[in-house]
């Protein structure tokens, strides 16, 4: 890609319907989802300060090399990914992505990855004094402290981890839940009781594809995480059920959002805001487009808009 300024197709828009997530004001309820946004890659396409928030790729204490390739496959209406959380590490993040994004005027959610409780703590310690606006703890990483299972599937371990991280910083802390559990309200409750300021959901569903030409899995890691339009009903049910179980906790809805209408469904399900993931891989401007569509849809729904603006939700 040759050097060029971003297009700013949308720059003159005055956002009409803000929201508040865990006390933090967002200019609109639409952010990017972790792992599907890189400033260096999308800055050509739009002004990132126009989003409600930008949630960055999971950062670990040291660089991670991730899984071997191929890392992706296509499902019906979905994408499968097995990045294995490749990232250049928290120090690189603090030196490059974060300052660039703050410089560009973005509201930044720093997504945190770790393979053990200590690793999470190491990253949170470094973010505590950073200009990141919010932290999002991705508890779906395979965790060596928990026999390789993600800490997000074990409410006791999750409570312990969040209690520890909570004590390290005053930054609003979002815990991002995995849908690959029997009852998502259980880890949700554990996270909130341990001090999480907000919850985001869903991370990806476990899935795989096989290449019938070879009979072998398409993805080298065999299984991957399913995301995109196909997971919409699963994400909505997760948000609705957690909202019902925990009427007060701020929730960021994620999963299958590629239009303002679908974002709106999440708000009706009880979310305070949403994040757009896979859609941004297929169309770089998707998060901003969703935000614009939602902004207009909320015009016709003053009651919902007023609740969001006041930091409350539909349910």
């Amino acid at each position, binding site marked *: *890609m*040759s050097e*060029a*300024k*971003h*297009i*700013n*197709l*949308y720059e003159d828009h005055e956002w009409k319907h803000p929201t508040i997530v865990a006390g933090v004001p967002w200019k609109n309820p639409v952010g990017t989802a972790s*792992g*599907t*946004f*890189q400033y*260096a*890659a*999308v800055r*050509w*396409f739009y002004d990132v300060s126009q989003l409600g928030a930008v949630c960055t*790729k999971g950062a670990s204490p040291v*660089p991670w*090399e*991730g899984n*071997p*390739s*191929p*890392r*992706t*496959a*296509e499902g*019906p*209406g*979905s*994408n499968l*990914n097995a*990045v294995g959380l*490749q*990232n250049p590490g928290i120090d690189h993040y603090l030196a490059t992505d974060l300052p660039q994004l703050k410089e560009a005027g973005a509201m930044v959610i720093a997504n945190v990855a770790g393979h053990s409780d200590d690793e999470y703590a190491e990253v949170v310690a470094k973010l505590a004094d950073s200009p990141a606006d919010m932290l999002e703890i991705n508890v779906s990483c395979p965790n060596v402290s928990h026999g390789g299972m993600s800490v997000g599937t074990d409410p006791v371990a999750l409570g312990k981890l969040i209690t520890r991280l909570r004590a390290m910083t005053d930054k609003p802390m979002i815990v991002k839940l995995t849908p690959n559990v029997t009852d998502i309200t259980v880890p949700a409750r554990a996270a909130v009781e341990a001090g999480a300021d907000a919850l985001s959901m869903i991370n990806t569903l476990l899935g795989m594809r096989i290449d019938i030409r070879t009979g072998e899995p*398409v993805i080298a890691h065999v299984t991957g995480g399913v995301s*995109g*339009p196909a997971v919409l009903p699963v994400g909505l049910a997760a948000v609705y059920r957690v909202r019902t179980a925990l009427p007060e906790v701020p929730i960021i809805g994620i999963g299958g959002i590629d*239009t*303002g*209408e679908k974002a709106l469904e999440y708000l009706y399900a009880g979310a305070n805001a949403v994040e757009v993931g*896979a859609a*941004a*891989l*297929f*169309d*770089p*401007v998707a998060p*901003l*487009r969703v935000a*614009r*569509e939602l902004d*207009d*849809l909320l015009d016709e729904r003053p009651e919902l808009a007023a609740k969001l603006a006041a930091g409350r939700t539909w349910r």
Partner: protein
Amino acid sequence: MATFTPTADVVAEAVQAGYFPPRHTVEITDVTQLAPGVVRLAFHDPYIAAHAKPAQFVNLYTKDPMRLMPRPFGVSEIDGDEVSVIFAVVGEGTAEFARYQAGDTVDVLGPLGNPFKTKNPAHYLLVAGGLGVPPLVRAAQHLAADERSRTTAVVGYRDVRFADDVFARYADRTVSIDNAHGNVVTLLDRLEADGGLTVDGGLTVDGLETVILSCGPLPMMKAVAEWAAKRSLACQLSMEQRMGCGFGTCVLCTVDTVDGRLKVCADGPVFTREQLGWGE
């Protein structure tokens, strides 16, 4: 449904102002079958036509909302405002594209990725295998405009030799082989042994160093890199990998290099044999 997907007007305006175009819809100008299962598709796109360099690629998107992922294809030729790609029908996405006709539309994003480095005058030995042909056609086309460099195209096909004529139009010399008769590396060896690899007989042409630009199946490219290493030739290889976005945002398209796992879309698709650690 409210939608803010940029219209043609907005894209045109942005592009005129020097911005990089987002995903947008273009008109298809030609769909031709070059060989059984091999199709040339051309579309009208002034921005991509003006900017796409050899080994850069474009994402095409299917119209089937069940198939959301990008289909990346190397740009193979540019003619005025027309951009063409050549692809093999391997799955449902390429099957859909093959059904298109002139006048239909397709969504496109590009040009993406980094080009072959062809600034220095050299004898560029374009070694293509199968559907590695397109970026090397573009390289031949691009270099044809460069008075200082020379080009030799060495092409391996599966069965039908579908691109010899277009290579011949641009390259100083074109030699090809098909599966029944061997592969590009056997061809390179034979040509070298015969003294027929270049117009000058040896590895240099008009005193220009030979630089290999290659694209093709993985085993072929590894063999080419080794062939180059044995002769201490510079060798740039254009890689393929399954992609999630094509523009550097998802880290789904990595290749193992001596510098770690790099993105084929944004760090490549072109890597040197040294970067890949091949032929050492």
